[in-house]
């Protein structure tokens, strides 16, 4: 995975596979403490305790189509190579929360990538999902909430091409406005 936004898409696919109807993506950049936090929380069926301790093991998966499960183990590797860590909390019947912490300006911190396309793809494949996306940079906030969008759009579905274009563009502009760090600063200098 070359971008953090692809990891986020992957985690949300896990949420959807677990029957989630609500997913919250929260990204926080703390410039003073040099921390990037990504949290994905869902209301899916949750992970049994006897399985939870193995979810970051690449040789464990609940799928039957293959014997390896790389999603969370790749994310764990991405956090650890940039001075961070990954934590997964889950309660059966209530949902799962994935918390990934990175050093914001670490040389090996993967770029955030295209969050507009990630959120657009999630919505286009799952227009009935209640998706909340919040991105904070030192107190400045960008928010996209599909429940609010539905109230405004009325009978128009969220997978309408015009709506998907809006989502992609609104996120790109919103993140630019709050000064979201797409790349670590040290990489910006080299680019």
């Amino acid at each position, binding site marked *: 995975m070359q971008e953090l936004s*692809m990891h986020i898409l992957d985690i949300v696919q896990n949420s959807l596979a677990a029957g989630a109807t609500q997913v919250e993506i929260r990204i926080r950049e703390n410039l003073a403490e040099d921390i990037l936090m990504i949290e994905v929380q869902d209301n899916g069926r949750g992970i049994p305790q006897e399985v939870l301790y193995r979810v970051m093991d690449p040789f464990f998966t609940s799928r039957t189509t293959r014997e390896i499960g790389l999603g969370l183990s*790749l994310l764990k590797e991405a956090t650890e190579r940039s001075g961070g860590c990954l934590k997964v909390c889950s309660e059966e019947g209530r949902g799962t929360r994935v918390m990934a912490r990175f050093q914001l300006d670490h040389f090996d911190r993967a770029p955030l990538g295209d969050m507009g396309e990630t959120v657009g793809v999630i919505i286009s494949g*799952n227009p009935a999902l209640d998706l909340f996306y919040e991105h904070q940079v030192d107190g400045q906030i960008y*928010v996209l909430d599909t429940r609010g969008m539905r109230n*405004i759009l*009325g*009978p128009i579905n969220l997978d309408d091409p015009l709506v998907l274009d809006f989502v992609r563009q609104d996120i790109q502009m919103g993140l630019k406005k709050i000064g979201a760090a797409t790349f670590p600063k040290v990489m910006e200098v080299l680019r």
Partner: protein
Amino acid sequence: MNVEELKRIREKSQKEMDLRSGEKAIKLVVGMATCGIAAGARPVMAAIKDELARQNAKNVSVTQSGCAGFCEQEPLVDVFRPGETKITYGKVNPDKARKIVVEHILEGRVVNEFVFAQDK
């Protein structure tokens, strides 16, 4: 979130809604498990939706699926057309996806050079 822009979209989309409604006869499924995402399924999905909108295709639904077990062939795209066998395209990229939309979805011709599997 730009609420005013969203309200403008509602007005514009409502006029076109009647044209787009109706049965979604053709179905595309994009593999969106870890293997698919790592291989590029996200831009493939975006390209499919974009090309369908550009071509004003009205009877096509696009959904996502998990891992089919053929990770080395990802990104995989399944095409279901009424009365025809399922076609699975392998190693799809955005350019191939646009070609599949135009030739297979709109014109009904299977793009044989990209086919990974076909239901008997």
